[in-house]
């Protein structure tokens, strides 16, 4: 019973005292990019690192992959799943990472 009381109180206390996650929360989709684009600077992979890259560069690349003007093995298939707004949000978030 005691443990249950404490758990209830903790849940309530957290709901009141912890601020909601900040606006810098990763936008939808970006968590999947790091499956191929390493977030680790030392990785030395043929698939380039996106953290800290210029946001416009990322938007230009994604738009080009989507419309086929930039040749790709897989990014054309992936970019087609994201709208302009989503791409901009992803690019801005990636650019802001270190």
């Amino acid at each position, binding site marked *: 019973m005691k443990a249950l009381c404490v758990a209830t109180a903790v849940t309530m206390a957290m709901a009141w005292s912890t601020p909601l996650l900040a606006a810098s929360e990763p936008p939808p989709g970006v968590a*999947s990019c790091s499956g*191929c684009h390493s977030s680790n600077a030392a990785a030395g992979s043929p698939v380039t690192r996106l953290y800290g890259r210029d946001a416009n560069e990322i938007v230009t690349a994604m738009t080009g992959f989507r419309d086929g003007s930039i040749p790709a093995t*897989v990014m054309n298939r992936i*970019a087609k799943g994201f709208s302009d707004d989503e791409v901009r949000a992803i690019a801005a978030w990636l650019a802001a990472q270190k």
Partner: protein
Amino acid sequence: MGISHRISRREFFGASAAAATALTFPLPAFAQAAARVVVIGGGFGGASCARALKQIDPKLQVTLVEPNKTFTACPFSNNVIAGLRSIEQQQFGYDKIAAGGATVVAQAATGVDGAARTVTLADGTSLGYDRLVLSPGVDLRYDALQGYDEAAASKMPHAWKAGEQTLLLRKQLEAMEDGGLVVISAPANPFRCPPGPYERACLIAHYLKTKKPRSKLIILDAKDTFSKQRLFQNAWKEFYPGMVEWVSLSQGGKVNAVDPATNTLITDFGNHTAQVANVIPPQRAGRIATSAGATDNTGWCAIDPVTFESKSAPNIHVIGDACLAGAMPKSAFSANAQAKVCAAAIATLLSGGTPASPKLINTCYSLAAPGYGISVAGVYQPKNGVLADVEGAGGVSPADVPREFRAREADYAQSWFTTITAEVFG
């Protein structure tokens, strides 16, 4: 804290004795207490999730429960079977995950009490949680094919969990005489790694072609279509002509029973006696998911596509192979992507927020021959309560491209494995 304040809160929550007692403690003491998240299973889903939870909110108390000290990865294990790679290259430890602040408990979870929010471990001790994540992967169903039980698997390996089974299949292939017959039996959907049996057929055929060219390989399939079918079939024709034969469901490919004593696979249409028999049986969610009340009558776990919370077991989230993720295939890529979305959703829920609708990507690379890569990709989002394909996105590698394109995809496949295992374990 004044009496009137206490009463108003008590009224707000209903005058339950538990709430009243709890609220008489001074609040600041509780504000310090971190929420507890237990993650069961240290594979691609669970290890990713434990790590992501600590990265998102270092204050969370995260415990990863996994009995093995070393994880042996399935992706690229078909290369081990074909003699192109060592098993050590598949193996990873948990030191970095522990260094990141998660507590790693080297035990199996034996039970979950969803009402008490506790997990029981093999040594009899238990762990309490506010949120539980299950990523136990698959259990092989030893009740599905007559004659195929755990003992039969030591004669007719599945090699569908990497490790000893992978090495056993490798050894059998090495021991086989030139001119032998290799049979792979592939299950119906859904199962772990939909392109896996066909990649395996390619890489075993590559080994046979190089070392035992008079041998044959037959795939007995419980399906009429399969992942990246056209690309695989083109590759069989191009690289292994006359060596690989695929028998579909409608051609009598479904294996109903096996006889380990004679290495025979039995279908409605006849018997196939193999020198090497690789039986990939039907699968279901790892047993612990059933103990947690998270499986439905299919043996898999229905989930909310935004939070990955079980549809039947509150506060329990299921990711990876064990969950029914709509259009997302059961892959290491999916498990990792789901883990990161699930971790963010849990952190948001624990802080009283509402998780936003996610988008996820999957990509599965396969090698049809060394240096010849093909892939299938998809982008997914919640729609009508399940994860659905984003229309217009995804699909397989193009059919008619120069060899150089396949070579690049083979490189990217390797680089994907390096990147993802570094993100999860490195």
